[in-house]
């Protein structure tokens, strides 16, 4: 395996990435690019970010050795990078706080965000409350039903939640609507994109703010094991938690990078979100990347039990890591993910997000493949509180009174 530098060259990763946006947004993206580049060499910005990570988010997040779960992973040693213990319950806060600070730096007073499962919406609403910024979150109507709890959380935090009724009424349509708002309000509004996709410089910015995960994890695993892991493992929707973890190991050729996308009902059924297994290169939401599309280039709606992985595109750097062979990506279907969800809950006392459960199922595969001498490092990207109703329905557990069980798909 060769070391591949995936540093963005003018926003491109090989043939992927770039900027496919209305001209009206070019100036805002240039402004964002300039603000980002000046911020990351400004000690006062870095100090503020680092301080908030420590005192507000709760970083560094711990590394937990999961021996009882590891018994189901071919006996490999399995470590969990505990992003679920961050304030707001997932890795999304890392990016939201970083971009909120950029918003202030640009002199803007309002943030908008798209959200699928609601975790990025909650993180952005949280950062907005913390810094005194206005916040509007766009969420597909279908997702507002599936993730009603997070809608209320955002409203409690002072954000306005806009329910999107266009198209398939899920994450991709929420992104369209956020872009439409942004082009109309760009003078005072920053669009806090939640994952490593979209037009340049978003993939690079989100990777930067999530790279703290990989940086910490690299140090922690070396302290624990005295060596690098054999594989690092993450689930991949847009791919921000994976990019954050991978970024710490990309230049270590001995470390395998393993990403797991949503196989839904099974790739063969067509009801999935497996961009690498069943998609092809195209342009969606401002970037060239692997996309689920038909023969005419129309986006195909994705399906997954996990709202956070239910997206027909993926970050462009993942596409390049895929094509170069530096990282490998496999689908995990709903049933495999839910089995891993239950297993981690019962063996380690940690209820993971259903998104994260896809990575856990991946770890079970990798462990069996690499054997008992292997060291695996997995990004436990979020906690599963938001998924309790979905899980209860899946496992046929009677829901306690007062918990509304959303419709599974």
């Amino acid at each position, binding site marked *: 395996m060769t070391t591949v530098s995936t540093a963005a060259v003018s926003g491109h990763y090989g043939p992927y990435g770039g900027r496919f946006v209305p001209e*009206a947004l*070019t100036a805002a993206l240039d402004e964002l690019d300039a603000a980002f580049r000046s911020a990351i060499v400004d000690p006062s910005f870095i100090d503020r970010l680092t301080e908030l990570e420590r005192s507000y988010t709760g970083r560094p997040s711990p590394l937990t050795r999961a021996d009882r779960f590891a018994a189901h992973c071919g006996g490999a040693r399995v470590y969990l990078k505990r992003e679920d213990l961050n304030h707001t319950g997932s890795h999304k806060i890392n990016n939201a706080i970083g971009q909120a600070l950029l918003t202030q730096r640009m002199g803007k007073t309002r943030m908008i965000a798209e959200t699928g499962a609601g975790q990025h919406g909650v993180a952005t609403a949280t950062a907005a409350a913390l810094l005194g910024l206005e916040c509007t979150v766009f969420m597909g109507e279908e997702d507002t039903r599936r993730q009603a709890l997070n809608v209320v959380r955002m409203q409690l935090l002072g954000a306005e939640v806009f329910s999107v009724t266009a*198209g398939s009424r899920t994450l991709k349509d929420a992104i369209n609507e956020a872009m439409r708002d942004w082009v109309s309000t760009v003078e005072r509004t920053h669009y806090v994109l939640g994952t490593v996709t979209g037009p340049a410089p978003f993939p690079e910015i989100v990777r930067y703010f999530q790279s703290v995960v990989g940086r910490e994890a690299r140090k922690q695993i070396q302290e624990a094991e005295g060596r690098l892991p054999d594989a690092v493992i993450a689930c991949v929707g847009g791919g921000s938690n994976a990019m954050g973890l991978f970024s710490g190991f990309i230049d270590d050729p001995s470390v395998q990078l393993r990403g797991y996308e949503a196989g839904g009902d099974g790739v063969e059924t067509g009801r999935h979100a497996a961009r690498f297994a069943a998609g092809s290169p195209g342009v969606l939401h401002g970037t060239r990347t692997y996309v689920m599309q038909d023969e005419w*280039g129309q986006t195909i709606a994705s399906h997954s039990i996990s709202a956070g992985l239910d997206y027909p595109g993926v970050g462009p750097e993942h596409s390049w890591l895929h094509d170069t062979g530096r990282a490998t990506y496999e689908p995990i279907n709903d049933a495999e993910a839910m089995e891993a969800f239950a297993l981690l809950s019962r063996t380690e006392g940690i209820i993971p997000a259903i998104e994260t459960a896809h990575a856990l199922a991946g770890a079970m595969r990798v462990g069996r493949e690499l054997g008992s001498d292997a060291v695996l490092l997995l990004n436990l990207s979020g906690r599963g509180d938001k998924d309790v109703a979905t899980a209860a329905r899946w496992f046929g557990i009677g829901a306690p009174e007062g918990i509304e069980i959303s419709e599974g798909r």
Partner: protein
Amino acid sequence: MSRRLSEVFAQTKSADRAALIGYLPAGFPTPDASIELMNAMIDAGVDAIEVGLPYSDPLMDGADIQFAVDAALSAGTTTDVVLDVVRRLDGERAAILVMSYWNPIERYGVERFAVALAAAGGNGVITPDLTPEEAGPWLAATKANEIDRIFLVAPSSTDDRIVTVVKNTSGFVYAASTMGVTGARSQVGAGAQGLVARARLATDLPIAVGLGVSTGAQAHEVAAYSDGVIVGSAFVRCIRQAVDLPAALAAVRTLAGELAEGVNRRAG
């Protein structure tokens, strides 16, 4: 081959009026009906037709056009259907252009699309989410097939950006009147006139203004400082509100007639 944009703009200039450019998505409400509707627009005085290529994720478009492209996609409007619509429009009397988001063109094949469009008689393409920086293969394919390629400038474009955009544009420059998405508005953006003036410093190409124009009076106002007036959502809205196809045809003719009068600078 339909009329060339250069010919259309030369003629409208000598007649002391702005060109009227009308947009409808191909396939809305059905492929055959969309052809009748667009030919009715030409009958009533539209100089160039923008045939919209329906796309699943139209992030530059407001509610009216989103509705129309969803309907067109549901009616089975593929890229091949769009090309057939182009072929069946009255290109003797109007320039026939396509307006498309980038992915359907890339998926069809950049060179293949340019060749197929030229064969169908179309001779220009507006690409709202493609900027010159990402357009390498498109520049070559459109040039080789004598397709005009129309890029956009916006109120937020810097003077340097305008130079880059117009340098790569042919046919006309599309000036977005406002920071926003498509849709009828009570007023055309106040920044439009300034944007046209800035673009004039960078190019001799005709400059047409789009976004938000829906009435004869607005068209007249915009025609005073631009070379072309682009109307889309207002036509879509006429059709949405009509009870049947004959009513839609009548409404479209009436609106196109009113706009055609509006773009005449000597009138009013």
